[in-house]
């Protein structure tokens, strides 16, 4: 039997463009374009990401095919039909319609042909099928239900699939404009956050509030049906005919205008976020149950942007009784579509070959991006004029970094292959001691330059996680929340803080404390990432060393970037971020760059580089 060919997957022209290279079921490389171009959520054709992926081909190897993550003809038809159905009220959207049609019609075919070398090598995988492939093929299950929920692909907004040895079979779909992703985006916009990137802020704001608007949302905005499906009341939404996600009636319903980005966050916004999150969770749990019912499977895979809602994901684990296993594609958004399209095309070419079910999964801990050797890193450090130490022994290195962390300092950590997907999982991470609110404040204000109420996530030694968190399971991709056990909480609760008249988010955050302040939210939940010391990741070794020194088996882990900046990709990006922030130590490759060892000019660079707010 000959080896399967190499397939390149591409996603582009909406948001979060990406490329991925696979051979059969084996994922060789994957990366988002934004990491190379340094433009957050870059939607342009992923020339740089594709170039990186193609550089991973063995010498002399050629691409067998190129798979695009959606069918532009079906998408174009949906766009045109929507405009026709809504005319003339959708006229404000017509310029956008013409622009995107021009891009899909004129630019995309040329770009794909140039990359593949021959248009006959190019195929188009429907958007939700690409997501489903990304969720099922790398999963540890030989058969599973697959639930895809996002804003919109071509026409589908929600799909349920059966995945078996013979491939994927769509069971049912919900169609545009009825969309859970766009439902959530509407509240994201209304609360003053940016659509398509601020949804995680809405999720983070929800625990501060009480779902007082839940009934109103259920009564007016969304119908949750007995079969697990849903329908939006389009009277309140505008994304199908205008430049806003919400119609004026939406504001009238809730009684206040849209919050502007710099306006204060009030209890109204907290309660609204809590209400939208609560309804979303109910819808997602119902869809998960429907997925099992429709397919007869007891394992479930998720993808699509809604699957990045780790609170809803945890609800599925808790509230779906017949569920034996849940696996979520870590690059659940559109970037993952590039991977799914490639896997689907590769499967189509090798149907005679049994699917290899990988354990624990086929994603290689999502470490699929570029790596840089010490020669390249040293050259960048020298070019930047930085003073650094070189430590060759891995154990000594981990110990030295752990020592710095134990001293309350904050570390930018850069090692090995870059993560694929929105989460930094240790290789492009900012690490800190999670104990103490001062860490939270410093990391938010002086490192990330972001809203001071937003909590961080913990990286926890896998074997220690059950000791600290309720219902802790292996969570290598930071896709579930778990509650800190009561033993580690301090007595004050959110309810008591509210009763004392505390309403500002940061004050509430300060009022509700735990032994791990920097990584627990006001409801004592945390967005858990578990890591094993034997995973081969240096971050795991650093955490082990930190545990040995302090008895604390977790670290604060946040992405290595500042607000509005893509996660760092190469050593120069990491150095720039170090220079732009108050990071105490840059641990990069085999080198340690301590701020205290640097000349005076280094501190003068802090805060010089700004990015558009996310």
């Amino acid at each position, binding site marked *: 039997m000959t080896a399967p060919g190499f397939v390149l997957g591409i996603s582009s022209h909406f948001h979060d463009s990406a490329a991925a290279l696979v051979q059969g079921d084996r994922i060789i490389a994957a990366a988002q374009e934004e990491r190379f171009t340094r433009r957050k959520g870059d939607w342009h054709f992923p020339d740089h990401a594709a170039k990186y992926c193609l550089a991973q081909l063995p010498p002399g190897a050629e691409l067998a095919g190129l798979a695009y993550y959606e069918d532009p003809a079906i998408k174009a038809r949906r766009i045109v039909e929507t405009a026709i159905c809504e005319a003339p009220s959708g006229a*404000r959207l017509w310029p*956008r319609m013409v622009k995107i049609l021009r891009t899909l019609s004129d630019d995309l*075919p040329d770009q794909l042909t140039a990359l593949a070398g021959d248009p006959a090598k190019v195929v188009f995988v429907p958007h939700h099928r690409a997501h489903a492939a990304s969720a099922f093929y790398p999963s540890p299950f030989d058969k599973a239900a697959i639930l895809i929920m996002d804003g919109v692909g071509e026409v589908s907004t929600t799909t349920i699939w059966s995945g078996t040895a013979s491939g994927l079979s769509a069971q049912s779909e919900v169609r545009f404009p009825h969309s859970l992703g766009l439902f959530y985006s509407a509240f994201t916009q209304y609360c003053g956050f940016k659509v398509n990137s601020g949804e995680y802020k809405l999720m983070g704001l929800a625990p501060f509030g009480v779902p007082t608007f839940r009934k109103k949302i259920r009564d007016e905005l969304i119908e949750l049906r007995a079969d697990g499906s849903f329908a939006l009341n389009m009277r309140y939404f505008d994304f199908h005919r205008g430049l806003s996600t919400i119609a004026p009636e939406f504001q009238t319903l809730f009684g206040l205008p849209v919050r502007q980005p710099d306006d204060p966050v009030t209890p109204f916004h907290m309660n609204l976020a809590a209400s939208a999150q609560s309804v979303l969770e109910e819808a997602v749990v119902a869809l998960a149950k429907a997925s099992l019912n429709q397919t007869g499977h007891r394992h479930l895979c998720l993808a699509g942007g809604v699957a990045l809602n780790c609170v809803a994901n945890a609800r599925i684990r808790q509230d779906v009784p017949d569920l034996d296993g849940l696996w979520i594609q870590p690059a659940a958004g559109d970037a993952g579509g590039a991977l799914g399209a490639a896997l689907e095309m590769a499967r189509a070419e090798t149907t005679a070959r049994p699917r290899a079910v990988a354990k624990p999964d086929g994603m290689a801990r999502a470490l699929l991006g570029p790596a840089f050797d010490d020669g390249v890193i040293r050259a960048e450090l020298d070019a930047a004029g930085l003073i650094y130490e070189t430590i060759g022994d891995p154990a000594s290195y981990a110990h030295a970094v752990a020592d710095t962390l134990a001293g309350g300092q904050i570390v930018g950590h850069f090692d090995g292959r870059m993560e694929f997907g929105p989460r930094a999982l240790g290789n492009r991470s900012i690490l800190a001691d999670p104990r103490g609110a001062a860490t939270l404040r410093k990391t938010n204000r002086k490192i990330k330059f972001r809203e001071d109420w937003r909590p961080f996530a913990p990286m926890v030694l896998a074997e220690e996680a059950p000791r600290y968190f309720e219902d802790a399971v292996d969570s290598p991709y930071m896709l579930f929340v778990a509650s800190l056990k009561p033993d580690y909480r301090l007595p004050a609760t959110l309810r008591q803080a509210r009763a004392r008249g505390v309403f500002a988010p940061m004050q509430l955050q300060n009022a509700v404390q735990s032994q791990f302040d920097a990584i627990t939210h006001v409801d004592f939940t945390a967005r858990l990432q578990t890591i094993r010391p034997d995973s081969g990741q240096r971050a795991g070794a650093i955490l082990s060393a930190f545990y040995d020194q302090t008895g604390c088996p977790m670290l604060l882990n946040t992405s290595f970037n500042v607000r509005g900046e893509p996660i760092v990709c190469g050593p120069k990006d990491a150095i720039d971020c170090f220079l732009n922030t108050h990071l105490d130590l840059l641990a990069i490759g085999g080198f340690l760059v301590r701020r205290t060892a640097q000349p005076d000019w280094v501190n003068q660079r802090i805060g010089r580089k700004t990015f558009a707010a996310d």
Partner: protein
Amino acid sequence: MPPIDHGVFLMRIAQMMDEAANAAGHLPDGGFQTPMSTLNGPPRPFSEVFEPRGRLLGAVARQAEAEGQSDLAAFCLALDAALEDGSLEWDEAGEDGARVAEYVYPIV
């Protein structure tokens, strides 16, 4: 071809879609639907998605015509011709509020 005024742009689109809009139905209902056949079909090749002439909207028009939606097909062909000959190039400076709020991503 010189760029047209934003108002002229809107008028041209409105004229092009007039008959199709009159014949249009409504947007899909909510709730579960039987999946579109394309979801369960094989990946489509380049030549099918972009039709032999390499025009996306030409392929959409052909499909619509095959389904008896001739008004939709005519609109797609008119729109495609306008995209190709540049007669829909508009002066973006005159565009009415490119974004209602900067914080909203265009959904199209």
